[in-house]
């Protein structure tokens, strides 16, 4: 099981029956396939609907995800315009958003939309999602490809939003973000707290109730 799948499987356990969920591009889109069978969620898509589903059969006119790629819809889906879509997003009507991250810091700040001089794709709907969703889960690999920490004291990349991250889930550990900073809740089997400290620039508390990361399979 690669890092991405470990993360996606663990994120799936964060979702509750009936949740309205918006998934960012990349890793987060893997989450639904790991949902427990008794958990049914409704996916919101920024371009204007509730009830996104995987494509089954031929693409149908206008049924595309926010990336313009054909997708399916659940029975009971509803379409609307972009103003309504972001009324839902900013207005607290999305229970959970799962987003990739470049950096998260102790204040719950997230940077995930821009690397100055390298990648300036635009923030799309990410700033609104992070500002508005009830719960913001960042799903990212613990370190960069070059081994640099992503859980930092203070983000040094341009922020997506301030103080909005609820949880960070990596292939090594699960943290919540409290008013006092990161709290380590779970570690993956075989990973020591020391190892996590080495790979984490940010300080973190250790939950009294620390557990092994459950991996549903």
């Amino acid at each position, binding site marked *: 099981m690669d890092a991405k799948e470990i993360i996606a499987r663990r994120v799936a356990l964060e979702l509750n029956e009936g949740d309205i969920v918006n998934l960012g591009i990349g890793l987060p889109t893997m989450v639904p396939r790991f949902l427990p069978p008794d958990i049914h969620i409704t996916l919101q*898509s*920024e*371009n*204007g*609907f509730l009830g996104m589903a995987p494509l089954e059969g031929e693409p*149908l*006119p*206008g*049924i*595309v*995800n*926010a*990336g*313009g790629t054909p997708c399916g819809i659940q029975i009971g889906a509803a*379409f*609307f*315009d*972009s*103003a309504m*879509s*972001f009324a839902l*997003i*900013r207005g607290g009507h999305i229970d959970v958003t799962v987003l990739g991250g470049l950096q998260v810091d102790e204040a719950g*700040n997230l940077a995930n939309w*821009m690397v100055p001089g390298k*990648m*300036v*794709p*635009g*923030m*799309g*709907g*990410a*700033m*609104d999602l992070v*500002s*508005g969703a009830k719960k913001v889960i960042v799903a990212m690999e613990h370190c960069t490809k070059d081994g640099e920490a992503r859980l930092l004291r203070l983000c040094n990349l*341009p*922020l*997506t*939003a*301030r*103080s909005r991250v609820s949880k960070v889930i990596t292939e090594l550990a699960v943290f919540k973000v409290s008013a006092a900073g990161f709290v380590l809740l779970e570690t993956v089997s075989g990973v020591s707290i020391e190892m996590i400290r080495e790979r984490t620039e940010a300080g973190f508390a250790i939950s009294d109730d620390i557990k092994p990361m459950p991996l549903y399979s």
Partner: protein
Amino acid sequence: MKKIVEWAEIGPMFSDGVSIMFGGFMGVGTPLGIVSALIESKVRNLTLIGNDTAAPTTGIGPLIDSGQASKVIVSHIGTNPVTGKKMIAGELDVELVPQGTLIERIRAGGSGLGGFLTPTGVGTVAEEGKQKLTVQGREYLLEIPLRADVAIIKAKKADTAGNLVYERAARNFNPVIALAADLVIAEVDEIVDVGEIDPDHVMTPGALIDKIVVRMGG
């Protein structure tokens, strides 16, 4: 006023330097025939306002590629490398706006509002140059309205009075930009007689639509 027009009439509705709001998410819901007519018309120095610049050959992309735009106001450009190249080369001014803020600025421009307060972007680069206000203990950015000279819309169906129906996720920005431009042109797959669309199913009232053109090869 004659709303239904021929394709030959579309090009002359635009002139150099106009601002154009366009519907569409990655090209889905963008009026591709009008984009082609704009390319043929060779108008230049356009300001394009919409969700994204799609890809070089899809949606609004060809108008970036052709060099006819001097400015874009969009929420992302990452899917169109040409936009990035022209921006870096100094040939294209790119204003990036969070998606929810962008659509709300357009709605404000079309609704007679002087602006709105949003939490989106507080504490980020999006707050540069903007007034911050605290309401009920929370900090917000004051965002101001956005309008354009022309809005170009894609709908599935129009009746002869201009009432529009969109299909699925192709709705997106279209009903909102219909409020916010001096001239509103809709490209539609088909035109039906007035009365054929149930008044409860109209998504954009005909009163907002100035011109209708039927998609080629439709």
